[in-house]
């Protein structure tokens, strides 16, 4: 039964301050979302979700068509679409370009896709400085850790943690007031913006019919990142496509509300290529890197494909009682929470972190809030079946398999079941006593697991079927 989940899980649970930070951080986002979709504020919320789901389904089902379309439309604006298979290809393209243009400094605005590709690390290996400019991302970059949350990368940090990091990494006096911390970061980052040669953004949506990249944010960094440097590179997974600009009226209504409870984020940028003649600002060169990195594997199965509908709003993380306990760093990849548990095994193979699809009570809170209606619990169940099938092939978990075969056999034989139940009860503690630790004859992993957290009620003197027979 050993789940082989990471140590991090236990240390997170044992850290009272961290528990508070996670619970409060996600709790705030839960409240904001709730208020934003409450009652008559967004009466067509459920219809929007259905609409968004259908739009995503249509796009993913016809992805080849829309990829071609976006390639043409970006080119028509004077930009270039670059298709990359993985992080190495993305890094190679950027490194090459940087070399040709003599670039040294890159500013970045928040992008989960580049986190997924370990882009910063790859670039730094080649002496290119890549600086995150979103405050949360900047903090975790300084701290040298991966984002804790899809939307709020430093969700787990208190302002005191931030003060420590700033003192340590920037060599400044300790400052614990959040507004002042923001000013400190801003002062550093303004200089970087001015000196940067390349700006890299992610993309929330890539609009096929207009060849535009849409980025939503609250700090304005993406806007600066994409316009101050001479070169703008947008990096996006191929699943970020949507067919038409008008479809944004569905997605933008859902994204901000689901993520942070905002009807619209402070900035919504439509970035469509380099500066044109007569325009006063914008980059001189524009590249849209569309990355596969395993996504086409998910396209193969018509049922699993829905994993690619995700618009990375983070709502499923906030509402997940498991994420709220184990936090973002217990997950093996940069994508944490329910959506992470669903896509990680599909990208990396179910053999790599077989515990992940099982780390769920299947409560369904994720699916309930997902703005694009991904059936996450169903995907988790399917992945569990994949894991057991994989283990069978590998000759692993023989005991567990045997146990479930016995279970199924017993459940097909009512007499054995009835007898077995009574034998088990007879072995239980006598005299109506509760169990709080495992007696020697019940010293097995599941019982120990249960009793590590909870007591076990005394077994019933008679089963229902006995009582019924005797009545």
């Amino acid at each position, binding site marked *: 039964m050993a789940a082989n989940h990471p140590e991090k899980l236990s240390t997170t*649970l044992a850290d009272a301050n961290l528990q508070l930070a996670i619970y409060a951080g996600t709790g705030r986002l839960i409240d904001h979302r709730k208020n934003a979709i409450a009652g008559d504020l967004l009466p067509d919320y459920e219809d929007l979700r259905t609409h968004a789901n259908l739009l995503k389904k249509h796009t993913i089902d016809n992805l080849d068509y829309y990829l071609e379309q976006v390639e043409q439309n970006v080119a028509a604006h004077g930009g270039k679409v670059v298709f990359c298979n993985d992080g190495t290809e993305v890094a190679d393209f950027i490194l090459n370009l940087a070399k040709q243009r003599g670039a040294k400094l890159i500013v970045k605005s928040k992008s989960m896709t580049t986190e997924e590709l370990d882009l910063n690390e790859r670039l730094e290996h080649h002496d290119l400085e890549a600086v995150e400019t979103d405050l949360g991302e900047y903090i975790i970059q300084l701290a040298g850790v991966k984002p804790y949350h899809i939307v709020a990368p430093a969700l787990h940090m208190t302002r005191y943690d931030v003060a420590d990091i700033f003192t340590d990494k920037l060599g400044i006096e300790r400052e614990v007031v959040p507004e002042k911390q923001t000013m400190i970061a801003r002062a550093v980052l303004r200089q970087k913006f001015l000196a940067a040669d390349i700006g890299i953004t992610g993309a929330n949506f890539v609009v096929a019919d207009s060849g535009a990249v849409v980025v939503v944010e609250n700090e304005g960094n993406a806007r600066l990142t994409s316009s101050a440097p001479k070169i703008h590179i947008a990096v996006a997974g191929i699943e970020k496509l949507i067919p038409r600009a008008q479809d944004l009226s569905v997605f933008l209504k859902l994204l901000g509300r689901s993520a942070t409870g905002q009807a619209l984020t402070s900035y919504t940028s439509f970035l469509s290529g380099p500066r044109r003649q007569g325009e006063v600002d914008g980059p001189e060169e524009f590249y849209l890197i569309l990355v596969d990195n395993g996504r086409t594997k998910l396209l193969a199965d018509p049922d699993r494909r829905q994993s690619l509908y995700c618009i990375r709003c983070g709502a499923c993380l906030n509402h997940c009682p498991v994420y709220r306990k184990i936090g973002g760093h217990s997950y093996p990849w940069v994508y944490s929470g329910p959506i992470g548990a669903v896509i990680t095994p599909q990208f990396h193979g179910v053999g790599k972190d077989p515990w992940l699809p099982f780390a769920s009570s299947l409560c369904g809170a994720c699916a309930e809030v997902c703005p694009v209606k991904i059936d996450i619990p169903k995907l988790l169940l399917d992945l569990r079946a994949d894991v057991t099938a994989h283990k069978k092939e590998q000759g692993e978990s023989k005991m567990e398999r045997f146990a479930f075969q016995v279970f*199924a056999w017993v459940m097909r034989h009512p007499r054995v079941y009835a007898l077995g139940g009574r034998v088990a009860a007879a072995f239980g503690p006598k005299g109506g006593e509760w169990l709080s630790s495992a007696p020697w004859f019940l010293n097995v992993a599941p019982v120990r*697991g*249960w009793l590590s957290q909870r007591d076990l009620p005394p077994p019933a003197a008679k089963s*229902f079927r006995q009582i*019924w027979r005797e009545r």
Partner: protein
Amino acid sequence: MSNRASLFVTCIVDQLFPNVGVSMAAVLERIGWAIDFNPAQTCCGQPAFNSGYRAEARSVALHFLDVFRDAEYIVVPSGSCTSMITHHFSELFAAEPARLEEVRSLEKRVWEFSRFLLEVAKVEGVGASYGCVATYHDSCHALRELKIKSGPRLLLSKVKGLELREMEIAEECCGFGGTFSVKFAEVSGGMARTKIESIQKTGADVVVSIDSSCLMQLQGALHRAKLPVRTMHLAELLASR
């Protein structure tokens, strides 16, 4: 309407909480329904299904189909087991058209207990009386798969002497999750503690649910924390007078 109901007394209720089954039968008889209990019944197969053992779950589901082939109304004291049958059996037989048809017919005949009372028997008050302050825990599968939310509360509101107080996080999972509760014991325990904190804040002396598995989890955590809050299945409350 034949006014005969077949009980599916889930394995947890049968073995660990038989009084829930007895109470369910008592309530149904009180409102004029004759009860069948086929002792060939066992389990819905959910433990195997949720653990990724589909073939094993399928074989248990086949047994269930056999046992309840002729039952007109099958009443179940669990949202989770009901949902296993009505929402997941079909996945087990997706590639078997004939079986799938049987499952489709079964789905329409399976009723979670509170829903059966309200929608088939069409009763709200069953003459129950129990003096207590109660808070209702929404079990996840009942809430999110079966969309059962107001029904049990309505039934509780008709219990004489009972005051219902909502907890803040009524809809949050108790952390049971079947084998999850032992495979990820610490996480599961943490979830239970969050839940009982919210229960405690209401000042209730009874937590009510329509799932005995959630109640076992909450009861175990409450007992460990030495809190004087009892757990009761809705059927037990409705049987009291």
